[in-house]
């Protein structure tokens, strides 16, 4: 069904064509799309590695790949997924695209730095890709010393350099967001009228700016130790391997909040729009994002409970880890309360939001499990922890990312996605995900260690279930890639505000003009005041 050729209005997609117009663009919307392309590539790469890992674990004996290859597979799965998909995904694609529009700005504060941050991610990605093709790295995405500095003979330096460079991409994005939110809000857009999407990205930017430099210097020291053997992390020369773990996790724990906070921002938008009701407890949800960003820096020691960390330090970190759980609980309760007396539509983005709230609740609660010292001693470095962080990363961040993509697709491309297929794929993803990762909780408590190429026979049934779930999940992820591309050509032409949403980004045509707003909007009402949009025709969910 070819839609009638509506007269082409000039927008950010068709005002200039050609490679140079994309590779040298300073428009935050185009840079958002460049990021979308890059992170999707790395998601596919990481997904391929995950598939091979799951196939290997079908049988207790290691008969699909050798143990060296298996160690490289789970390492590259971790590196590709974390540093090149989860950390950049939401902030750099949807955040880049919509943060300026939501606060009524024409662009980010530093457009050229925004383009530079994309190039840094691509260059870092190429380094890691080179390392993967040249032979792979087998230290685990955590690069624990002294294995990574003395005993591993794989491409540690190339991968570490890739992560080092992509770290600066994250720093620059964070810096750009903070300055934009502080200095470029439209008149009338007070802090308490900003959409919660912007609040969560502001909190994420704080973590990116304050945390990422520490892993940058840690990688420099790892580089020096591996090349010059100067003993910073080498115990035979007086170094302390546990110090590396402290510096690594100082960044890497807040990094998990870099991955989940933007997802929470999306869910706050979706729950409010599809219940047609302001979010319950706006300021609590907003300050909860800030609390997570701040408290997230005090808890990293819970990764070292059994790593010969001192008992008293472990007590302190376990105690603080429970503080960071409270803001997440507040958010979940506020989302649920928003549904009360709402007008709830079941469009695909809302299904993803429900999926997020459900799975993030399980992920968060198991976080409370592993924060308890006595319990963590038994389950750390087992599949219980693998299941915990996949529930939050895959069940949470990727679900919300897909929900956000579906929600803003009409604004980005001017086309609607096919509702029927989208709902089907959301359901497949939900089922496939649970079948993949719930058995791993049981495996973990049984004592199945992480990163094992060979395992005792009694764990095989649970592994087979998990692999079955992984194949269902893979199908679920392939479907959106297909119908999103299909919708570019054949999707229904989208109106400016198909969902009846209240954000400033919906007051521009779809796809938006080059400078977002012909006239800088004046904001007069609260963040989610739906009385202003009633009467516009709305997509029936």
């Amino acid at each position, binding site marked *: 069904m070819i839609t009638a050729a509506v007269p082409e209005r000039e927008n950010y997609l068709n005002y200039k064509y050609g490679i140079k117009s994309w590779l040298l663009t300073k428009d935050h919307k185009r840079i958002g799309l460049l990021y979308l392309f890059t992170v999707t590539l790395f998601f596919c790469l990481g997904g391929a590695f995950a598939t091979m890992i799951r196939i290997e674990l079908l049988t207790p004996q290691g008969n699909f790949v050798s143990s060296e290859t298996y160690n490289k597979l789970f390492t590259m799965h971790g590196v590709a997924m974390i540093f090149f998909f989860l950390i950049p995904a939401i902030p750099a694609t949807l955040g880049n695209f919509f943060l300026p529009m939501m606060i009524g700005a024409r662009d980010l504060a530093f*457009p050229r730095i925004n383009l530079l941050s994309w190039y840094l991610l691509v260059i870092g990605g190429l380094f890691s890709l080179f390392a993967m093709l040249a032979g792979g790295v087998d230290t685990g995405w955590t690069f624990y010393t002294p294995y990574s500095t003395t005993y591993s003979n794989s491409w540690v330096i190339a991968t570490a350099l890739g992560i080092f460079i992509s770290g600066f991409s994250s720093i620059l994005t964070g*810096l750009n967001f903070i300055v934009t939110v502080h200095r470029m809000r439209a008149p009338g857009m007070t802090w308490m009228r900003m959409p919660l999407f912007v609040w969560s990205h502001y909190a994420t930017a704080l973590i990116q700016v304050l945390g990422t430099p520490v892993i940058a210097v840690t990688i420099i*020291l790892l580089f020096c130790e591996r090349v010059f053997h100067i003993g910073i992390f080498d115990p035979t020369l007086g170094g302390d391997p546990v110090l590396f773990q402290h510096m690594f996790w100082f960044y890497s724990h807040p990094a998990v909040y870099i991955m989940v906070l933007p997802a929470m921002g999306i869910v706050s938008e979706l729950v409010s729009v599809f219940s047609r009701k302001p979010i319950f407890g706006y300021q609590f949800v907003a300050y909860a994002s800030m609390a997570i960003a701040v408290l997230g820096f005090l808890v990293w020691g819970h990764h070292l409970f059994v790593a010969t960390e001192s008992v008293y330090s472990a007590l302190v970190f376990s105690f603080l880890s429970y503080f960071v759980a409270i803001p997440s609980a507040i958010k979940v309760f506020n989302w649920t309360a928003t549904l009360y007396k709402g007008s709830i539509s079941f469009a695909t983005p809302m299904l993803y939001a429900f999926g997020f709230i459900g799975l993030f609740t399980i992920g968060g609660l198991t976080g409370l499990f592993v924060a308890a010292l006595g319990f963590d001693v038994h389950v750390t470095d087992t599949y219980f922890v693998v299941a915990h962080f996949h529930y939050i990363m895959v069940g949470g961040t990727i679900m919300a990312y897909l929900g956000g993509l579906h929600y803003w697709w009409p604004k980005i491309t001017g086309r609607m996605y096919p509702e029927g297929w989208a709902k089907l794929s959301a359901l497949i993803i939900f089922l496939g995900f649970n079948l993949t990762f719930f058995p791993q909780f049981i495996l973990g408590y049984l004592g199945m260690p992480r990163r094992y190429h060979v395992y005792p026979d009694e764990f095989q049934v649970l592994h087979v279930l998990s692999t079955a779930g992984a194949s269902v999940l893979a199908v679920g992820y392939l479907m959106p890639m297909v119908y999103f591309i299909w919708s570019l050509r054949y999707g229904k032409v989208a109106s400016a505000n198909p969902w009846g949403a209240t954000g400033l980004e919906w007051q521009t045509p779809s796809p938006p003009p080059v400078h977002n707003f012909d006239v800088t909007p004046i904001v007069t009402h609260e963040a989610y005041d739906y009385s202003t949009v009633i009467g516009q025709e709305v997509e029936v969910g």
Partner: protein
Amino acid sequence: MANDAHAHAQSPALRVQFDTETQQKDASTLGMWLFLVTEVMFFGGMFLVYTVYRHAYPGIFAIASSSLNVYIGAANTIVLLCSSFTMVLAVRAAQLGQRQAIILFLILTLVLGGVFLGVKAYEWNEKFQEHHIPGSSFHFEGMQPDEQAHAQLFFSLYFAMTGLHALHMVIGVGVLLFLIRQAQKGKYSAEYMTPVDIGGLYWHFVDIIWIFLYPLLYLIDRHLKG
């Protein structure tokens, strides 16, 4: 609206995404301060490692740090403080729009920065001759083999921290060259002097890092050797 069209006609240096001059200047200044915070955390990682190992091996670190030439360190600190002084005078000249003064003070800062790097290179060369460069040729006389490793740890931290600081000085020299060229082309006036201002912030920050490096590396437990 009226204010959009009006703003852009006002001054060519105003970027399209900003509405007013002060908004752009505040944004640039906030951006630079945030960048300096990332630098604080960047050097912070190094200071942490130094603190941990100074606590672990106080004796050997004291002997090794006492082998550094404290007079060169002090002289270098004073050179860097002078360059900070001339830099702030350059920023002040920019605020007043005195084009000649900006160029003069920027060149002075550049020269002093060069002197600092020169002295640092001399110091490193002296270390090279004394075989204090970490690696296979490292040897610190009068120490047991396992103490050699701990002394080598001190010198690897010494070279890592002063090396990182020197790298930031080199970047600073690059920034100064850029500022001088722009100033000569008359780009900076009392209304538009943001690049000089944030260039100054960066230079002063690199100076503050050295203000902490100097006592930590050169002075602590200096009295042991006298």
